[in-house]
């Protein structure tokens, strides 16, 4: 797929992928239009896509597993890719990863393999992209607007969303970044309130 280049303002329908390029200094905003929608997101250094968002570098550096205003999204080379400049949701997930046909067979039933899922969206977007990205280049992603609490006893829950209609997250790009989104089609757990909905994605140069 052809990435949009900033400035852009588009609606990503439920279950669809999106790719865009956001130059250094530009802002990127993702709006949860109807509420409780998981937005599976990866970032790459647009000039060298072997450098990409790293959940581990990010949470290690900030000492916290959740993302919110002030969080620096770091690459696998430890460098800042983007910073969260505003967040009206309050918490975003770094651990839940993306749903896939194969993980759906494990988590729900072998027969769920045919259901649409985020990794299929990622793979199709990358296959139709002119770049050299492929499955190797899919590390653990961010789930914007998704609520995956970890308990002090080490439990992991997929809880009802804390987002709502119109909540948004806004990021400032620290380098030229390629953004890859799967607007999650998962129907088997409450990450999308069992009803995947569209999101709005905007990028612009600040004044």
């Amino acid at each position, binding site marked *: 797929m052809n990435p949009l280049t900033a400035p852009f303002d588009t609606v990503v329908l439920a279950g669809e992928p999106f790719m865009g390029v956001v130059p250094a200094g530009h802002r990127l905003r993702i709006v949860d239009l109807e509420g409780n929608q998981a937005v599976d997101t990866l970032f790459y250094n647009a000039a060298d896509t072997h450098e990409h968002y790293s959940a581990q570098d990010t949470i290690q550096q900030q*000492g*916290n597993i*959740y993302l919110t205003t002030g969080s620096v999204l770091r690459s696998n080379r*430890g460098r800042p890719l983007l910073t969260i400049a505003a967040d009206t949701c309050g918490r975003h997930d770094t*651990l*839940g990863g993306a749903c*896939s046909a194969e*993980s759906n067979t494990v988590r729900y039933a072998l027969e769920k393999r045919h259901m649409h899922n985020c990794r299929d969206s990622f793979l199709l977007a990358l296959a139709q992209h002119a770049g050299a990205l492929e499955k190797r280049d899919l590390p653990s992603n961010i789930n914007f607007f998704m609520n995956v609490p970890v308990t002090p006893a080490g439990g992991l*829950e997929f809880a009802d969303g804390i987002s709502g209609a119109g909540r948004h997250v806004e990021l400032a790009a620290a380098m030229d970044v390629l953004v890859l989104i799967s607007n999650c089609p998962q129907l088997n757990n409450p990450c999308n309130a069992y009803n995947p909905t569209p999101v709005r994605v905007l990028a612009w140069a600040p004044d």
Partner: protein
Amino acid sequence: MPAITPLWSQILPGGTHWSGVLRRGQSLRLTAQGADANVAALFYSREQPLERYNMADTLKAQHTAHLAAGCVCYSDMGRILCAITADTLGWHDPLCGLTDKAAIDARYGATSYQQQRNARHVSGREAMLVELGKYGLGERDLVANVNFFSKVVVDAAGGMQWVAGHCQDGDAVDLRFEMDCIVLLHAGPHPLAAGTRHAPPDVQLEVYRSAPVAVQDACRHRCPENERGYLNTERHIAA
């Protein structure tokens, strides 16, 4: 820990790295040789290394944010690379990733081969990149790892706290391989470990033939998800 007859054993000196192939039917025992040991580990299918350990799928399938006996390590293809069949600790960290050179230098002071020779500090990221390279793999294949022997608790606000003294001399964990795997290990300090003295303990590696899998295997029957993970794995192996 169950009694075993090792096929071979070796000491992985603290701070160093290792890789090898461990096959279905083999198990690996890691035994800490001192307090606060840490072993960063990664697993790849030997048949197709694009199939690799997947942190998120491992945690989601088992509804856990820590690993212990009874848990398995899932690949991104819905299959089980290895199972944690025994362990003395009850908690291994799957969240925190690796150290990099900047972090190691900042915490322990810069070292170099020219100054320290083989006592120099090698970061987790450098260690894994070296071992990956031996199989034609590289930076793109470096995914979230397990940190065996380490415990990091997460508070209600998401804050992460490394637990000192969690691992003591002699603590051990057994991994039963369910697929032929490329295994990467680094016995360096945990990325959130406290202290400024770089003294990661040695770790003993022992490889042995896995015991026959019981009908009521604890890993397989930990949860319905793992039963399906084993079905996926058996279909793949039988093909």
